[in-house]
């Protein structure tokens, strides 16, 4: 490997066939280039999906009620199921060990919301203090709803950042301002921000206030939970699925719903959805590897082909070398080393070029579901190993043929 003479010979042959070597190298370089770009985008998709799921706590589980579709215990289908405070409280008691945070939620529609003379058209929801953690809302100013607000039926509101920029642009801070909901003044106590504008177009008020002031009584529209973090993703998914099923069975029983009736009690586990997405992405990544490696193989075949031509062209020279005492192994080494050299150099240039491209432009790519395509160190390492193997494979058959050249015949070769 560190034999200067051999390197000189390799450079000599490459120098003699610049264009040919360049074109061969190009096929390997583009193979590696495509592989790295594909893998980069695989990672980008993973990042993108991970970001989508960051909007809400990934262990969150949502429950909402619908209409029964199946007859059960003498009850007709088509019955509307209504979740109530008592359902939420009982679940909290029964499953206290499983739950990290919990909140029930009311959706209040059709009320006029005003700030001064301005009419605001934003969603209004009553939530508990823990809802902040379930929604992954970041408080940028002031505070979120707390227990004190709940107990005192406080008329306070937390608004999304989008509302702040839309409505309170002229003010330094909206905190302390009053908005009127159905004519009742609510004091703004906090501003929250989310990854998506859509989720910032909400006004949160205390759950208790929403029920007492706006005649919701004990009705609730939705229950959300998060589960405590698990050691790894697989356990988390399993736990989430188990909890989801337990919760549904319990609520079905309480509301006298047939166990197979899926539309009366709806439970959605973010974890399960994430799991599906991530396994989809794993498959896509696998496919990308496959396509990338096939491209690299096409490049390798090119190198192998060229090396065969090199051996053919140098038959006479190989004959001379053997006549003056080159051992077969020396001939094999010569061809093999050239092949590894060509694949490695061109592969590395393709690799560096594609990595550079990803490094420079990757951070600017923000399409839905693709964020910051990049390649990590392990992938880089496996690509390098792949290259060495590729070069060896590409050189093997030509080298073997070269070593088996018959000296006398080779010397007669023109």
């Amino acid at each position: 490997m560190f034999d200067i003479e051999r390197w000189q010979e390799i450079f000599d042959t490459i120098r003699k066939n610049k264009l040919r070597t360049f074109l061969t190298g190009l096929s390997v370089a583009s193979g590696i280039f495509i592989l790295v770009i594909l893998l980069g985008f695989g990672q980008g998709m993973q990042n993108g999906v991970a970001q989508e799921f960051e909007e809400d706590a990934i262990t969150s589980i949502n429950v909402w009620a619908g209409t029964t579709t199946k007859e059960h215990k003498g009850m007709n289908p088509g019955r509307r199921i209504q979740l109530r405070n008592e359902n939420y409280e009982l679940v909290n008691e029964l499953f206290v060990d499983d739950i990290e945070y919990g909140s029930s939620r009311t959706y209040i529609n059709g009320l006029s919301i005003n700030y001064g003379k301005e009419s605001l058209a934003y969603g209004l929801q009553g939530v508990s203090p823990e809802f902040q953690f379930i929604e992954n809302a970041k408080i940028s100013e002031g505070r979120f709803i707390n227990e004190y607000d709940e107990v005192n039926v406080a008329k306070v509101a937390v608004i999304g950042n989008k509302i702040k920029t839309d409505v309170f642009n002229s003010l330094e801070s909206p905190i302390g301002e009053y908005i009127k909901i159905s004519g009742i003044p609510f004091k703004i106590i906090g501003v929250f921000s989310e990854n998506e504008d859509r989720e910032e177009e909400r006004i949160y008020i205390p759950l208790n206030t929403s029920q007492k002031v706006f005649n919701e009584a004990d009705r609730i529209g939705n229950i959300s939970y998060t589960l405590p973090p698990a050691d790894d993703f697989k356990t988390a998914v399993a736990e989430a699925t188990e909890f989801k099923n337990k919760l549904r069975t319990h609520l079905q029983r309480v509301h006298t719903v047939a166990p197979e009736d899926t539309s009366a009690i709806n439970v959605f586990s973010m974890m399960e959805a994430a799991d599906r997405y991530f396994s989809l992405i794993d498959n896509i990544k696998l496919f990308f590897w496959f396509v990338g490696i096939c491209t690299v193989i096409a490049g390798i075949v090119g190198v192998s082909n060229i090396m065969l031509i090199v051996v053919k062209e140098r038959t006479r020279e190989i004959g001379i070398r053997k006549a003056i005492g080159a051992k077969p192994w020396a001939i094999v080494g010569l061809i093999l080393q050239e092949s590894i050299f060509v694949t490695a150099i061109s592969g590395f240039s393709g690799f560096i070029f594609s990595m550079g491209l990803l490094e420079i432009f990757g951070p600017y790519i923000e399409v839905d579901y693709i964020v910051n395509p990049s390649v990590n160190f392990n992938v880089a390492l496996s690509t390098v190993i792949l290259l060495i193997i590729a070069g060896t494979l590409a050189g093997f058959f030509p080298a073997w043929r070269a070593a088996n050249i018959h000296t006398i015949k080779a010397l007669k070769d023109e």
Partner: protein
Amino acid sequence: MIEIKNLHKSYKMGSNALHVLKGIDFSVKEGELVAIMGSSGSGKSTLLNILGMLDVADEGEYNLDGMPIKNLNETKAANYRNKFLGFIFQSFNLINYKTALENVALPLYYQGMNRKKRQEKALKYLEQVGLKEWSHHLPSELSGGQKQRVAIARAMVTEPKVLLADELTGALDSKTSYEVMDLIQQINDKGNTILVVTHENDIAHMCKRIVYLRDGVIVKDEKVKQVRAKEYVQ
């Protein structure tokens, strides 16, 4: 130096075998300059290939400097060729992208000698053949006679026991042929054993002994009065 007993070699040509060497008995002493003569098809090239360990005999014994040459694998044969034999070919067989010096140094590379020593030694031998000033020229920049002299230097550089020359003047005009033969005679004068395969009578008579080969057998083996090539060179 060379002892050959009852050497047989045949080649398979389709269904029938071509018997090329039919029992050759032959020996060469140290310091001899022997010409092997014969028309094409007489088996002289085959004999040289076997002597050069590029080919293996079907039957018979071959001793080189008291050492039996048999059961050679590729690696062993390569090793012996490198250490004991020097080849000179009709078509020079220089590597065309290497300079004269690098060509001469190549056998030493396969001996594992380091670069500096190699080049020193190669330069010494190039000087002996009178081509020191041409050491950094490529074969394409040299005349035929110069190329053959580079090839001779290459054959000599490993200080082999025997030099084997296959029609070494075949590609040269007569003036250059004599110059090359003059060089061969000088090398022989220093005590080197040389075998020359040729079909040219005048070249054969510049050796000290001529072996005539016909149809795979030695028909005549005689000592001759050596014609000095120098007389023709001026």
